[in-house]
């Protein structure tokens, strides 16, 4: 019984912790402009992140090595250094977006200006990173984040034209009001939102934090293979809500209040309260993850002592890095830049940086010296190679499409 509870906790935390501001914004924007015609990208992205997270979790559990340590060991300092700079910039950008998301959500709840919430949110994130135990942090934010299920409920409450939604999803077509280049640009953005690199840094470092061994691989497999797809279903629900409410009116979503409007329409004030709680939890949780990831990536590249399982004094440079990253994020947000815009850029840049992170994991997951008997099977490798190609194509196509479409304008 206890085991079952443990499994359930793992899965629920995975679902609730899956969504972040990137998923919220990108799915809502895509829903409002393209309906569900990009839903297939979410499927591709979910399979990809399941594959990627599973491999890196297995590598961390069996070899005790977290992702960025492996990136440096495999790519050498020059390529890994370039990867580090890119990953750090993107992770700090994502951290900025997440803290902005927390502030925006708190604004919705309180009508207090976001700029006042930003330092509060950042301080909150720092205190949790400084003092809270890793597992408690993960479980609380993951479980409260489950409140976002209200998006799925709202889809039903809004009584949509199901055949129309199904038609959009299963027979994707570029809507008349958009052109093909923009369609593919948003496909890459959506892919990047699902396959965020920081998720993998965090997942594998977390495996080392929680001292996983080969025995834990089974549990992690369940969490990933059940939790992530259900989280992906929630992403599609967000897109569906936006599609139902905004697509017919040809309104493009560009603020958090618009993202939650369908929920308010469907379930009134109660649903709105629930969704705000969910967004605060999900973005706060993601801010914790990205904040920790800045520390993980730098410390693992340079060989520093790291980990929340150690007291801060035993991971001094690791904690200092995160403090600096949080200060930088607050600094960026205080310039009144729109966190939604920051989010949109962070997901595309995530897609661009993906190959450099993905290739070393694929290589190490096959290396018997690290993995012993737990090397990739044929099926995993087949998928792994297919996704290597997908990830490369998305990465190479991102910048030209961004320039061609003016970042999706």
């Amino acid at each position, binding site marked *: 019984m206890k085991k079952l509870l443990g499994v359930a906790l793992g899965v629920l935390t995975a679902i609730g912790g899956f969504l972040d501001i990137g998923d919220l914004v990108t799915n809502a924007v895509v829903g409002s402009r393209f309906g569900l015609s990009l839903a297939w990208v979410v499927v591709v992205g979910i399979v990809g992140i399941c594959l990627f997270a599973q491999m890196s979790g297995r590598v961390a559990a069996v070899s005790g090595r977290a992702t960025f340590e492996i990136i440096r060991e*495999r*790519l*050498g300092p020059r390529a890994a250094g370039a990867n580090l700079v890119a990953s750090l910039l993107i992770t700090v950008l994502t951290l900025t977006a997440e803290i902005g998301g927390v502030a925006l959500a708190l604004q919705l709840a309180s009508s207090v200006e976001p700029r006042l919430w930003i330092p509060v949110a950042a301080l909150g994130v720092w205190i949790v990173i400084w003092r809270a135990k890793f597992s408690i942090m993960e479980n609380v934010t993951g479980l409260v984040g489950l409140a976002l299920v209200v998006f799925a409920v709202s889809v039903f409450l809004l009584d949509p034209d199901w055949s129309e939604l199904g038609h959009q999803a299963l027979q994707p077509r570029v809507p008349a009001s958009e052109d093909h280049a923009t369609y593919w640009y948003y496909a890459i953005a959506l892919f990047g939102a699902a396959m965020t690199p920081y998720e993998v840094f965090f997942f594998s470092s977390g495996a080392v934090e929680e001292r996983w061994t080969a025995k834990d691989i089974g549990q992690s497999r369940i969490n990933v293979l059940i939790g992530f797809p259900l989280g992906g279903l929630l992403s599609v629900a967000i897109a569906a809500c936006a599609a139902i409410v905004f697509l017919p009116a040809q309104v493009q979503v560009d603020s958090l209040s618009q993202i939650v409007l369908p929920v308010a329409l469907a379930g009134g004030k109660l649903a709105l309260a629930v969704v705000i709680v969910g967004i605060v939890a999900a973005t706060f949780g993601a801010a914790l993850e990205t904040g920790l990831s800045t520390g993980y990536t730098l410390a693992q590249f340079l060989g520093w002592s790291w980990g929340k399982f150690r007291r801060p004094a035993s991971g001094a440079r690791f904690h200092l890095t995160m403090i600096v990253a949080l200060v930088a994020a607050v600094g960026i947000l205080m310039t009144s830049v729109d966190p939604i815009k920051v989010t949109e850029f962070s997901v595309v840049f995530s897609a661009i940086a993906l190959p450099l992170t993905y290739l070393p994991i*694929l*290589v190490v997951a*096959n*290396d018997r*010296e690290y993995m012993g008997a737990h*090397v*990739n099977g044929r099926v995993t*490798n087949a998928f*792994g*190679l297919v996704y290597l190609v997908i990830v490369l194509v998305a990465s190479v196509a991102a910048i030209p499409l961004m320039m061609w479409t003016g970042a999706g304008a």
Partner: protein
Amino acid sequence: MILSELLDSPVHDDEGRRLGFVVDVRLALDGPVLGLLASPRVVGLLVSPHTGTSFLGYERREDQRPAVLGRLLRWRHRGTFLVQWSDVTLVDDGAVRLAPGYRRWSATLRRTTS
């Protein structure tokens, strides 16, 4: 001398012809025992026509998977060979010279597990 002075250096034979670049240094733990382990002794240099992707090591191991990637990288790095340290006559800033009559050995690495 530090290792990175050797890595990526061009390699010439005794007539000055280019043979490739040093992509790695092969060591064996059979040198003088100073602490617990024997010191690693330089056995030879691995020379390859490219300095690119050899860091992944696929051209030196027969059984590395994914098989497709392995075959691709082994093909890309054909012409990689091992030369014994005793066949190296000159190690200068920026270039390595081999003795006349040096022998090219297979680059394959068979690890004896400790």
